[in-house]
């Protein structure tokens, strides 16, 4: 069948600058660039280009530019070229369209419609460069009340529940071995150790090389139960039950069989070459009381020494679900918004299912407080956090901490080209190909991550200081510090904030 799909991108090569050094050929994993010996010139197969920018960055002569191929369909706001392309592609293949990273649709980012406060006159702002500002955060169940024995010396009767101690309220979200390679996980692990936070190994099991970072690791138990064994459960600082993911709520996932090589099979404890399927539900959780059963099974298996988190995608009735989770014995609730990213998801699911994290977070915090159980759980917001401002706004809406995934990958070199599912990531990130993986140096990548978190830490303190707050717990759920801009009455009501100027 002749394809009616034009190339998405066009490679522009300045032949005057190009010295035919062939670096672009080496760097491109999609086979775009090639050398024509007869004509002695560099040519490209535009149809293969994904616009990852690798060749652009590595061309020593800066001779390459990638352009969007603006096919001149007749202008139409409803039948955009993206829509036309998708229909043609499906007509030619009969398959569901796969994509990577998070939803890229406009108007779902509400962080940018929230503005922060600063003190003027009635309250002094604080200079974070000279005065202490605390951003340490503990995640885990807090008791409703501290009980003390008061005969003579004050003795604490309340038992301290297991907590995660974050020196910065930003953790690295679950990214599994298989979706990325070991170098990426190693970089995340080192940065987590250095910054006093945690990384999450996702549901792909845990490589033995990462065991030494166990104190800064959150292990994940997902529906596929890959790599879950007693040692795995005990090695981490916390266990996360993954119910859902913002990029693909309500559906399972799979790592294609061709990616399941010897090492990944070993980690996931499955045969080589088979699809690694994560079923849509956990088959031991068909109802909320079953969640409680799994939470306690994990606590039994680890001697009640670790907090158990439950991660859900932000969907329509998240507040009610979160309330159920809080009563299930879970210590931490992770909410992943509609913009949350993934290594692979059907595009139709990624772009159409779920709700923005801002609304889910605001309603969950509100609901738990109204029910008097907010202290029972910590809330982690995930999916769409791009900057320290997003972190601060999330905490003011009621989060205890946030997860970052895409931001961490971008720090390591990712350009968000959305082709993670091909396994050919030219930046050496979303690939397990041993050769391409070498492009990511864990030492250098971890340095980038550490720099990012340190920079965010400074900015968070600057913002807190401006509000006259010297401890992050005084920001948590402090919606008086937020104002909305360009939001409807109902949006403001759900976020429980006022419009700017009021």
């Amino acid at each position: 069948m002749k394809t009616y799909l034009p190339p998405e991108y066009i490679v522009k090569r300045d032949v005057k600058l190009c010295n035919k050094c062939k670096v672009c050929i080496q760097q491109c994993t999609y086979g775009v660039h090639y050398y024509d010996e007869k004509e002695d010139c560099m040519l490209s197969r535009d149809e293969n280009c994904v616009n990852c920018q690798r060749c652009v960055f590595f061309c020593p002569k800066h001779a390459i530019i990638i352009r969007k191929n603006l096919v001149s369909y007749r202008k139409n706001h409803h039948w955009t070229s993206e829509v036309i392309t998708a229909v043609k592609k499906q007509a030619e293949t009969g398959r569901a369209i796969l994509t990577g990273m998070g939803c890229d649709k406009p108007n779902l980012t509400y962080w940018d419609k929230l503005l922060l406060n600063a003190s003027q006159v009635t309250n002094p702002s604080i200079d974070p460069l000279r005065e202490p500002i605390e951003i340490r955060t503990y995640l885990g169940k807090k008791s409703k009340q501290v009980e003390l024995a008061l005969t003579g010396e004050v003795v604490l009767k309340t038992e301290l529940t297991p907590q995660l101690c974050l020196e910065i309220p930003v953790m690295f979200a679950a990214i599994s071995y298989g979706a990325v390679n070991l170098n990426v996980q190693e970089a995340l692990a080192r940065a987590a150790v250095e910054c006093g936070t945690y990384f999450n190994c996702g549901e792909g099991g845990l490589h033995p090389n990462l065991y030494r970072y166990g104190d800064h690791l959150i292990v994940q138990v997902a529906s596929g139960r890959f790599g879950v064994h007693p040692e795995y459960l005990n090695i981490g600082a916390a266990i996360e039950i993954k119910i859902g993911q913002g990029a693909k709520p309500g559906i399972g996932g799979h790592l294609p069989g061709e990616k399941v090589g010897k090492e990944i099979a070993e980690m996931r404890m499955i045969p080589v070459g088979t699809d690694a399927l994560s079923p849509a539900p956990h088959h031991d959780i068909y109802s909320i009381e079953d969640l409680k059963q799994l939470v306690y099974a994990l606590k039994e298996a680890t001697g009640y020494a670790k907090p158990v988190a439950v991660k859900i995608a932000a969907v329509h009735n998240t507040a009610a679900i979160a309330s159920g989770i809080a009563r299930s014995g879970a210590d931490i609730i992770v909410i992943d918004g509609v913009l949350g990213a993934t290594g692979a998801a059907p595009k139709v699911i990624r772009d159409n299912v779920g709700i923005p994290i801002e609304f889910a977070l605001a309603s969950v915090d509100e609901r738990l407080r109204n029910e008097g159980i907010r202290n029972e759980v910590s809330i982690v917001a995930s999916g769409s956090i791009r900057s320290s401002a997003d972190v601060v706004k999330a905490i003011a809406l009621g989060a205890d901490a946030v997860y970052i995934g895409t931001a961490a990958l971008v720090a390591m070199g990712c350009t968000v080209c959305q082709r993670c599912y091909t396994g050919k990531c030219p930046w050496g990130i979303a690939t397990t190909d041993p050769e391409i993986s070498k492009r990511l140096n864990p030492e250098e990548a971890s340095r980038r991550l550490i720099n990012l978190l340190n920079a965010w830490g400074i900015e968070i303190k600057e913002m807190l200081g401006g509000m006259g707050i010297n401890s992050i717990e005084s920001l948590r759920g402090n919606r008086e510090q937020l104002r909305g801009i360009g939001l409807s009455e109902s949006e403001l009501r759900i976020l429980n904030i006022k419009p700017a100027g009021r």
Partner: protein
Amino acid sequence: MRPLSQVNNPYKDDKNIDACALFGMINIEGTRFPFKDPLKAISNMRERGNGLGAGFAVYGIYPDHKELYAFHVMYLNRQAKRRVEKSLEEEFRVVLSEELPTKEAKVSNPPLTWRYFVEPNTSKVNEEKITEDDYVMKNVMRINVSERGKALIFSSGKNMGVFKGVGYPEDIAEYFCLEEYEGYMWICHSRYPTNTPGWWGGAHPFSLLDWTVAHNGELSSYGANRRFLEAYGYKCTMQTDTEVLTYAFDLLVRKHKIPLELVPKILTPPFWDEIDQMQQKQKQLLTALRQTYSGLLMNGPFSLIVARQGQMIGLPDRMKLRPLTAGMGGSFLYLSSEEAAIRVVQPTLDKVWNLTGGEIVVGMVKAPAFVRLQLATMR
């Protein structure tokens, strides 16, 4: 549910902000004394107020009725009075009901003010299986909320009373005939509201049950504090820092039985770095307090005087952004925004010091000595 805020906060600001003068003095023998000294002291800090609010809380004021809850109530009209009195008759046994004595003074638009000595309806208290205090608190909050500012119970403790309104302290004292009263502890407040017009109900101190809080400064953590307290069943209807401070003390000390000297470890806790350095037991205690009550950390500039029967407590914020001075002389402990206000009533003091950030000072009637705990002693 924020009906009172319509009156207290007509422009729907996040909350009321004000700067103020504070003064408190307690006789540790429990000997009662008249208003002369407290008034002189608070008047000495006239620049800290602006005539838009002043008030006094006097403890030991009603020895003849010390077993009864004394309600001071403001009414904007007669209908409100009828409604509230009907409600009081239903929920309480009203032993005595009378108008608060007042006289001509430089105040504008004073509401009608009445006082009632009541005891809770025992069968209802038993039926609801709550303490008398909780029963009283519930009813006071209910009445205040439903009256939407038409009526306000602004004092509800036993053997204590609050007098407050719009004016300078001298005017309020004059208006309420404070020369007729004696108490062993006086808490005085002169207000400088930033964002609210004068409203009689909005004057300080704020009082609920036995608690009185007078406060200077602003809580930048207000939103976090309020949301934390609401999860424990408190309704923050006044939208003031003072209100959340009062509820915080009530929750911690009355309900959760946290000893007073540990309360600053929650409201103005040491830094995590400091807690990390402590010995294991101490560390666990302070970690538990700070983790559990993280939403009660009071951030921003404030100093406050908190009183309850037999006790007067002073506490500045942990970065010491607002002033608070303590003085001891004779049988008195003084707390004041400015030392001069203490000196003006007691020129020779045994001891006088400016409180450090997060330092709590507690004066207790009939206690062997003043209890004074500093951060350092906890380390």
